[in-house]
């Protein structure tokens, strides 16, 4: 497509382009917004999710009350046990998972939580990072996939999904209430 013809349309977009993170910059933090990255290879999916803790827990401060500790425990256990994407046949299984939350401490159900590097530096904002390795036997390029995150976490308004695989790369956005999507260019 010719660049000169596109210039009037595309140049305003430069102003709106988001700035990528670097070593010196803290990660962007926007309540209601979460990111999901999917790297596909055959039946294997490497998944990485990043969300403000508020979206998943309802608060970002260090849990103080027993109710807050219970919310943290329940949520982290759910994030460990639930594939964050699945096929229509719900055949994806977790091979490995890791949840990073600054205040997981001793209150988590599983031993693989790691304290965030940001702990103590940005106490006003806390993120939760989730890494999962999934095996989905019925996964192919045309598969209709779903994510349970939108229905599980009501504070989550937008889920930005980026994917890469043998059929190329792409991105899409799930709005509140949307759970299913298809990877296609």
């Amino acid at each position, binding site marked *: 497509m010719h660049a*000169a013809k596109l210039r009037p349309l595309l*140049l305003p977009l430069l102003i709106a*382009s988001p700035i*990528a993170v*670097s070593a010196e910059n803290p990660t962007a933090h926007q309540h209601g917004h979460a990111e999901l990255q999917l790297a596909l290879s055959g039946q294997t999916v490497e998944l990485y999710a990043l969300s403000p803790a508020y979206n998943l827990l309802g608060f970002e401060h260090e849990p103080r009350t027993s109710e807050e500790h219970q919310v943290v425990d329940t949520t982290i256990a759910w994030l460990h046990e639930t594939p964050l994407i699945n096929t229509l046949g719900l055949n994806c299984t977790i091979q490995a998972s890791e949840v990073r939350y600054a205040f997981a401490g001793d209150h988590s159900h599983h031993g693989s939580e790691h304290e965030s590097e940001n702990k103590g530096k940005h106490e006003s904002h806390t993120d939760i990072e989730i890494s999962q390795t999934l095996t989905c036997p019925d996964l192919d390029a045309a598969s209709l996939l779903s994510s349970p995150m939108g229905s599980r976490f009501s504070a989550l308004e937008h889920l930005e999904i980026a994917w*890469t695989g043998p059929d*190329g790369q792409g991105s899409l956005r799930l709005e509140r209430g949307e759970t299913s999507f298809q990877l296609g260019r």
Partner: protein
Amino acid sequence: MNTRLALSLAAASLWHRRRVLSLVCLTLTLSVTLLLGIQYLRTEVKQSFTSTISGTDVIIGARSGQLNLLLYTVFHLGDPTNNIRWSTFQQLKQDQRIDWLIPISLGDSYQGYRVIGTDDAFLEHFQFGRGQALQLAQGRWFEGVFDVVLGANVADEFNHRVDDRIVLSHGGGRTSFSNHDDTPFRVAGILGSTGTPVDQAVYISLAGMEAMHVGWQSGVAVPGRTLTPEQAEGREFTPTAITAAFAGLERQILTFQVQRALNQYTGEPLTAILPGVALSELWRLMSQFERALLGITGFVVIISLLGLAAVLLTLQAQRAHEIAVLRATGASPGLVALLYVIEAVFLAIVACGLALMLGAVAVSALTPWLQAAYGLQVQLRPLTTMEWGLLVSVPVAALLVALIPAFRTWWQSRSLGLGDTAES
């Protein structure tokens, strides 16, 4: 009800009103062509847009926004914010996770087209469309310091051939007063057409990019300090910085990990983007316009269908005598009403068929022009499910529209009080 009788009566009625109805059919044909054409072009433009680059897993540049980096490296739009050090590029080449790297060095132009300093990896690894590699239409890839390879459109516009001599300009812009007159380049080859921004650039070696800037200070050549091609031969030129790099990874499943690692690179601030992800985001921002366009076209079809209803209602007033005769000869109110439905659906089906033919002719005729003028690769292809859906919705909508005069006729026929003798 006798279907054959209904069809033969409808055919006779259509033939009787052929002049008026052919105009209605023409209006409907044009609006369906427009609707289908917009949807078809929308799909093709998206395909062409997302096929601009493929096979490249990551684009690496100085710290910037992902759309900015995508636009100046792939679409040749906008300007780089900063460069990345050559030493960083060399370190990235040592990274075991990275399979290949294409250096991209920008800054100069030829008659308004971007000059891209790169190396052999560009020809070897750059892909577009569905993994199509670059092909040389004439000559060979650059070998000497002052060799240049032209994109297809650049060669076409200036009618260049292999072994022509061209002078590159310092900086961008179509009109430049700072030319590298002392270091003309020889056209070594011309790339085949790709229908992508690759066609609109000229390619030289990184050494050539360095050599033509020897003796330049503050954007001006210092007299006596620039090199002649003879002086440059045999010398080593190593860049200190490049603008960006395209990377292919050993394992695609590591793409996001590598991206995160590059974005946290401690040597210098870098931005790594996934071109396919950035293209999707860019298309999503632009898709508001195409949806609006599709919506407007949908309204054009609705207006045409309302026009069809208006014509049928107008004709209804003139058909009072005909209906009375039909009823007197035993036609039931249902049969009379059915005539309107058959006529409207038939007109819509004919309009859809004509629209398909018109669209196919238009696509075939306009393809070379779209390719030449806009770089769009539009090809004749079978309709998608959505396009078939749009097409089928037209006769369905015509059927619904025809129910208005059909019901009116049925109601009025009953009041004629001739009974339902033809009902079966």
